[in-house]
């Protein structure tokens, strides 16, 4: 089987950006546990994203940034430290993509959530705490301001046209730019995996 491209490639992306001023925003906030058995194919799946911060128990809207008009259209989030820490639930990324969110900019990410983003074509952009705070401040001051991201050059342009460079692992970049799925990549190594299995079994006979 050859490498499949099942994800939308990520090359450049520009959108209204949303400041999310929550430190350690865990994946239980991004999607509360009680929605984990809900199918991402459901028409109202977009509502699960940050649900308990956005909605009252009766379903009415709270006073939360994502409920304000220009920010409703935001497809890029600018978050705080340790975004997506906690549970490994990949549904947290499904909740983002159900709202069209293609990139999250933050000073740091939960390791598992970071990987889950990459595997679903969502770009995690790591900038310093100061830069993220600056961007969030600008977005609060000019609601509806845009951020433009260029993955090839690993850079983004803020609302004031300032340019920021960001790091990303070469393999992750390759996957995102081409929308590659890992299983496809790995199956190309089938022979190598088979020969590894043989020598491994010989070395670790105790484990079978």
């Amino acid at each position: 089987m050859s490498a499949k491209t099942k994800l939308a490639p990520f090359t450049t992306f520009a959108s209204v950006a949303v400041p999310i001023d929550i430190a350690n925003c865990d994946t239980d906030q991004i999607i509360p546990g009680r929605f984990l058995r809900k199918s991402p194919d459901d028409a109202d799946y977009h509502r699960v994203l940050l649900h308990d911060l956005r909605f009252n128990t009766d379903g009415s809207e709270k006073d939360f940034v994502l409920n304000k008009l220009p920010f409703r259209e935001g497809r890029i989030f600018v978050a705080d430290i340790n975004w997506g820490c906690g549970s490994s639930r990949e549904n947290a990324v499904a909740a983002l993509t159900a709202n069209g969110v293609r990139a999250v900019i933050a000073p740091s990410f939960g390791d598992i959530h970071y990987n889950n983003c990459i595997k679903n074509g969502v770009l995690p952009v790591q900038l310093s705490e100061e830069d993220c705070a600056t961007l969030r401040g600008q977005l609060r001051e000019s609601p509806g301001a845009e951020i433009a991201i260029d993955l090839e050059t690993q850079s983004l342009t803020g609302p004031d046209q300032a340019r920021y460079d960001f790091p990303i692992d070469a393999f992750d970049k390759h996957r995102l730019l081409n929308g590659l799925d890992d299983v496809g990549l790995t199956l190309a190594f089938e022979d190598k995996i088979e020969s590894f299995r043989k020598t491994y079994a010989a070395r670790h006979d105790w484990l079978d």
Partner: protein
Amino acid sequence: MGKTLFQKIWDEHVIHEREDGNVLLYIDRHLTHDMHHRLFPLIKAQGLTVKEPDKLFGVPDHSVPTTVKTVDDIPEGEMRDTVAGLERAAAEFGFHHFGMTDDRHGIVHVVGPEQGITLPGITLVCGDSHTSTHGALGCIAFGIGATEVQHVLATQTLWQRKPKAMRITITGTLGFGVGGKDVILAVIRAIGAAGGTGYAIEYAGPAIDAMSMEGRMTLCNMTIEAGARSGLIAPDDKTIAYCKDRPFAPKGKKWDQAVSYWRGLRSDDDAVFDHEVTLDGDAIAPMVTWGNSPQWALPVTETVPDPADETDPQIRADMEASLAYMDLTPGMPLSEIKIDTVFIGACTNSRIEDMRAAAAVAKGRTAKTRTLVVPGSGLVKKQAEAEGLDKIFTEAGMEWREPGCSMCIALNGDMLQPGERSASTSNRNFRGRQGPGSRTHLLSPAMAAAAAVTGHLTDVRDLIRAERP
């Protein structure tokens, strides 16, 4: 330069290394639970199958009610569908499955070590962040996302970047009433909820050497709450004794081979860690959390902190938001916080030693709060009953339940009402974790039992000392 324990195990499992440092890693054991049942039809639809079903172990835990014993007794709906979905997948793809009526059934992170599925020197993954638990046996174990789960199902491998190495040394001797839970809460408080991000953490030092296997599992379990996907502890005599004769552990000559291999699994004296932290074990007191991140932990003897004392505006805002959500006032003694419900269970603290510690406090006392005691597996439950612990709990007015995740994640009907406050032996005090609007204080099983019998957070040492002549 010597190698770390992590590096030694890692190197044994590298199939291929790319120039950019990404590695294709062989996975020895894959655990799965009910919440992943949808992934099986998904891989099938892609023309894939489970590559090595004998290395895959499934157990339903998140969605099992703790009041019924069989799938048919689960009320119709998504809970039953989820549990039945895993069972169906196991039958179709031929992997190991411990269903609800099987004594071996329980929380995936309790079952793995208990069955000898988890062993020193292996790589083990599960689509669950608390897979870090298994590292207590001296293996590389980490949680993965659903796409990675499908990858392991289809290939028995994973693409990974090697994490950086951190060693946390706990010196000295833990005091009376202090255990693994208090140590890990003290660690997370010290390094922060993101302090371990990008690292694998090895725990070492005299306090770890002296710690039981159960305590070590608690420690590694919550390593993810410090941001690190893996925690691990070098296997020693205790580890080896723990693994011996477990159903899936090697036997006979293979056991001897395994033991001689495991004996070499420790960080070399000249191994270099990217980061080293040392904590004084003698100084660790029983801990409780007061906020919505496990890093917001303090000794129970202290008071609710005042955000005004915090100079960093972002941390201050975070503290203020936590206190508002938790409905706490700065300066209030933590031991005056009244509790509505006590939960003793979850993969953090539902092993036999945890049940014993809670029972020792509950014995002869009466619970002032609703208290759920949920053993981590059918075998823990049996053992506890053989020791009469269930009687102690029920005589104290506590509920003795069937194994499962229960109120740790509130996906099975066991939950708090909005605004309700719990003392919980689980691992997350996130907003809404135990039900929308729930307020969670994390603590050890002995501390949880103390809160149950007094109705407020309590220093278990005082409670026990008070009764001593």
